[in-house]
């Protein structure tokens, strides 16, 4: 039920309090409300649940996590096989 799917904002419309936007989920496009993420911009990735974007995914944080995991593997001599 708390399933949240990442999607990419393709376009957004102004003026409507529900801030409807077209969001692409790996090929499928749906209309999603951006009412809870007023900071969202075209091209951003959002986590969507029950028709609403709940957060704008933070690319910097995502890269930091992946870098950390990569370094952890190297530090332990893991070749990642």
């Amino acid at each position: 039920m708390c399933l949240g799917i990442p999607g990419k904002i393709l376009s957004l419309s102004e003026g409507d309090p529900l801030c409807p936007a077209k969001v692409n989920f790996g090929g499928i496009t749906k209309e999603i409300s951006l009412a809870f993420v007023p900071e969202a911009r075209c091209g951003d990735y959002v986590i969507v649940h029950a028709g609403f974007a709940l957060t704008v995914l933070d690319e910097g944080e995502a890269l930091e996590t992946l870098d950390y995991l990569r370094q952890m593997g190297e530090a332990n001599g893991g070749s990642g096989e």
Partner: protein
Amino acid sequence: MKYVDEYRDARVVQRLARDLAQACTRPWKIMEVCGGQTHAIVKFGITELLPAGIELIHGPGCPVCVTPLAMIDKAAIIAARPEVIFCSFGDMLRVPGSAGDLLTIKANGGDVRMVYSPLDAVNIARANPDREVVFFAVGFETTAPANAMAVYQASRLGLGNFSLLVAQVMVPPALKALLVSPERRIQGLLAAGHVCTVMGYREYEPLARDCHVPIVVTGFEPVDIMQGIYLCVRQLEEGRAEVENQYTRSVRREGNPAARKLMGDVFTVTTQQWRGIGEIPASGLRLRDAYAAYDAERRFGLGAYRAEESSLCRSGLVLQGAIRPVECACFGNGCTPEKPLGAPMVSSEGACAAYYLYRRG
């Protein structure tokens, strides 16, 4: 797909498994709270990658599973009325009530519709002014903002034919109930990433401190879950009990302020009955008095309805992490996803369904 594929990288998962094996010197019991995580753990075989001493206990984080029987019955009673269009997420349609499920009502002529968003139900109400449209507002904090927005929109549009049957529950009070229980087995917790995306994790800080339990806010992909377990074990091994955030790409400490604001405007905290667990103070949401006109229980006069649980289904113990699904005598033997005795066998997040679909042992 960006933000999915890199978190399903088997090499990274295996690396984390090795680091975890190195970090872990003793057996530990860790509960993953969210049913979505339970499904990912069983589906991706994460338990097979863990050191022998690590036991994952499946938590109560399945809103479908903890919605009280009386509420399922109320849904069926309302859905059977000829003037009603009853809208629900798909998960709820097959949860058995005292006299069948919502699909049975539909088969018997009830107008029961599966929707993707509560806003779909608002649009159905707009398009059908001569019908009563009811949305079954089941969910945790993740879903509450969407449900709040549906009521807010209905009120803004002056829709007199829309109402919510509210069964909203909140995670931290339920965790506290499990952590202070004399039968507590849990030593570490993986908190639910999307609940925390909405609410943030400040509420968990006193819980970690007072109950001396490390809490790691964790995402839903295999890499997230392995890293969440690793961070939790590292805290346990070092004797720390803090809140850590693994799911930083989605979760901020304060959560989503716009979503929390609307939730607080529309809903207020109330005592809530959890199916299989019992009553937990301040663990649910009800509509504020200003929105009482949108309360389906009030509209259809069902406030006093009560129901008795079946004695066969042991889902209460499963939901508390006291037994594994396979330890129930009915598992796969009188209780299957096609013919469930209890909600955890129905829901896409229920622990019983996860075991039935992906493993039997």
